[in-house]
């Protein structure tokens, strides 16, 4: 292996030269050597017929409950899954095409449904908007913990915190629902102390003096 050591400069320079050449050629010619990206899965074939209008879509049921628990896995005993790229949101189920394009315009049930939806839940919309504001505030003040332990151990994990806000937006109480270790728990709780939440809109959670919120904070050392 002596020769490897003696020729190491020449070998390294040759390899570097080859890599550089490949990079520059690729860059200048815009050639992309990556395999063809897989085509997006096709939706159901869209059929256009002049026949009877399709089954009217049933009126939207009551607004869906808060996002299903799939987002808050309760699997502390399973080893953490390897980090994969976020799976793309499952494609929204294709609505049957609005028949308006090829049908004489009628008051389609599809058009009616949204109006019905809005009429039923202005409060829910307000509450959703407030939740979005709470989220925005957390996004604004989020910070990876800067304690010495955090810098040296660089933990990664998800902490689910709960906090109770008064109508004026003050944090009455808080705690950890799903721990990710004391370093990150502390980071999550410190975030709460920095947060300034707006007061509730008058109509939101009417009758309640306080409301409980949960948030999942995912820390990555980066």
């Amino acid at each position, binding site marked *: 292996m002596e020769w490897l050591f003696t020729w190491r400069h020449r070998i390294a320079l040759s390899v570097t030269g080859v890599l*550089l050449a490949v990079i520059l050629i690729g860059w200048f010619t815009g050639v992309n050597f990556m395999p063809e990206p897989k085509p997006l899965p096709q939706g159901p074939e869209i059929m256009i017929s002049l026949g009877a209008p399709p089954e009217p879509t049933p009126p939207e049921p009551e607004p869906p409950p808060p996002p299903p628990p799939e987002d808050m896995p*309760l699997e*502390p005993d399973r080893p953490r899954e390897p*980090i994969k790229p976020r799976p793309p949101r499952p494609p929204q189920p294709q609505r049957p095409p609005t028949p308006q394009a090829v049908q004489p315009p009628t008051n389609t049930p599809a058009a009616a449904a949204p109006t019905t939806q809005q009429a039923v839940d202005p409060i829910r919309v307000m509450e959703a908007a407030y939740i979005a504001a709470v989220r925005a505030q957390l996004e604004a003040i989020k910070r990876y913990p800067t304690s010495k*332990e955090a810098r040296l151990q660089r933990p990664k994990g998800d902490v689910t915190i709960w906090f109770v806000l008064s109508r004026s937006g003050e944090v009455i109480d808080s705690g950890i629902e799903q721990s990710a270790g*004391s370093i*990150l728990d502390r980071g999550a709780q410190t975030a709460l102390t920095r947060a300034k939440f707006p007061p509730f809109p008058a109509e939101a959670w009417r009758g309640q003096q306080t409301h*409980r919120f949960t948030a999942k904070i995912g820390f990555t050392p980066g």
Partner: protein
Amino acid sequence: MWKFSTALLMGASVLAMSAAHAQQAATPTAEEEAAKTETSSYVGRIEVQGAGTALGSGYIIREETPKARSTVTREGLNNIVPSSNPYQAINVLPGIRQDQDDATGLFGGDITVRGLRADQLGFTINGAPVNDSGNFAVYPQEYTDNENLAEIFVTQGSADTDAPHVGASGGNIGIVSTQPLDYLNFRVAQTIGEENLFRTFGRFDTGWISGGDAKMFISYSLSDADKWRGEGTADRAHVDGQFYLKIADASSFSVNWLYNDAINNFYRQMSKSQYETLGRDFEYDTFWGSAGYPIHLTGVNGVAQNESLSVVSPEYGINTTRSNFWPLQVNPFRNAVVNVKWNLQLADDLRLDIEPYLWWGYGGGGFGRTESEAGSVNGMAFGDLNGDGDQIDTILLYRSSVTRTRRPGVITKFTWEATEDLTFKVGGWYEKAQHRQTQPYSYVDDNGVPLDVWALSESCNTVVCVDGQTYAVQGRDQLTKTTGYSFFGEGTVELFDDALKITGGLAYRAIERDGYALLPIAILTEGNPSYDPDAKYPQVNYNELLPSAAVSYNLDETSQFFASATKNMRAPSNFVLFTYNGAGTAQIIDDNIRAETSWVYEAGYRYTGEFLTASVTGFYNDFQDYLATAQIDPTTKTTANIGGVVIQGVELEVGTAPWEGFTFYASATYTDSELQDDLANGVSGGIIRYLPTAGKELTDTPEWLLAASIGYENSGFFASITPKYVDERFFTLMNDGSVDSYVTVDASLGYRFDESWGMMKGAKITLFGRNLFDEDYLGQIESTSTPNATSQLATDGVYVFSAASTNFTPGSPAFVGVTLTVDFGESE
């Protein structure tokens, strides 16, 4: 010691496993979860990325700790050529004054932080201490490869309560390695540059394996460069690695290891007058071995060959001897550090960190030297060195100061969150170091090359053996067993909705040194009247109780005020245990020597806004028993406590978030130092004479340090420019000698290719420049203990001290290098 540690580790692992199981039992059932969601609104998932941001060009982060602390992140580390050592990376931080032998960083250099030298600072790698256990020196080029660093932080004032240091009267420099990547990756980087710099680096990351529990990386780099002046090279091989295993949700086990193997030629230090007459290119001789200047004189029995005769150098026109031939000035060193961590979440509110480490090193520094055959050292006679049958010659040899160190240690810490607002930390550190120091001689061949640079040979044809014996002549031979340990406790309470945070801590740090003199040989030679196989000199102990207190108040989410007070200690180096007088007897030099202690007071304000991050800190370091060379009695001048020193000043740093692609960083430090006492500097007529140093400034402590960095990043292109100003510095305690101020400007420019080609998924090419305006300056001052550079009157008004001197290392000239980095593997 090891068995106990293993048992503790096993026990802790079992505890961790059961704690993890206990946590599962407490998880709410599905029904409970459903019940909660009915009255509880889920806000969503919020992602938080760590502090590796592009704030302030990579030189500042949003800090919260209630004491002075500055950090260089990965962004900042990218601005310097990858062969650089950690001192170069922190150059622009407040309080830092550093200079390296050359731009590559491969040869090492020095640093001062608020005027304190590396041997007064603590230096850790992932929490493990790496200062030399004997004299607390640090050799930054031995520890890291730039690509594997996540960040380097500096606490300028004091080490933390749980720090494993006994030689840190100043602050601490902490190096944090990256973790293995989550995905499979192979990175290769090739650097070429001036000084024939050639560096190849490769790192392999496995990504998560074994069901997503474990990951590791291993990297290897090979570097070599020529010295920028004179002849000689640096050759360095380095291995880094880390294995990381997730145990349960918030617990982990990791092993970090590094191995460094380097052999460098020393740069020549010069006096101020040599610098002024011969310029910065003055170096060791290169002409020996050429016609008329043979390395060795032919041996002739009965005729004295004197290889110490000086000649006029054809290179510099000054007197020189063979000892100054460049191949005789060598620094070979190999070292390894292994650092194991169990970071365990034992219960929801209790964490346990157990971190054993091992530091191993072998190597030394060698120089050319002539010795007389008729002479002896430490009672060991040289005898016929050139084989001509007589003992009247003076022959050129290579003498190496060799160090062999083995330091296992362990740091243990419990962190208990008693309540939401109250946290306690309790722990300890224990280390047992063995440090063997020898000073053998090696023969030199006819080309001027030492036969045994590594001092590993046992052959008397290679190493100079005592006349008539089979063991080597040693300029010194001593073993120091140093036991360092500490107990610490710290409590933090948060009040007023976490706006006010008060921390109080107490550390008891102690060090015991056992010095074993292995010379004179007479003591260890059976049959000799002086024979004493248990020869060991009394133990020395230094211990201190070190309290600390800190307060921080968050006015609002952008402003924080903080104040802290900490006591630090630095034990005397191990050479106070040994002295070699003409007869070779080793003894404790000064029974009265005490550890250097200091109280550090800091107060400051931090602003962390969306665009601007800034901090300003005032500091006051009050040293007692500062260690420097002094006349302790009419016959002895040695390291001693010279009294008090006060170092005070202000540090400011400012960084911005990216704006139009630009980020800015600036730091400014003002330091005012003052010696409190006069220095016992000499003796005359049996009376100790004092130099009037009271009121003078400390050496190598510039009043002003200014630095800035402007970074720019836009669609693949990135660049940075980093100027630094270092004020004038005194090199004598009487302040009658100084080196000029200087400005250096470094820069980087590069392009990041984001496209992917097959397996190749990213590449980056970067041009690096250091000292681009080729500033010619004296960077390093060899000794900070030099009393006076000109004749000075003693305090008695009668005695006159004659001038003393020290040596300097000039700053390196303009340098340019380029690196190509390519990544292969999976995408994130």
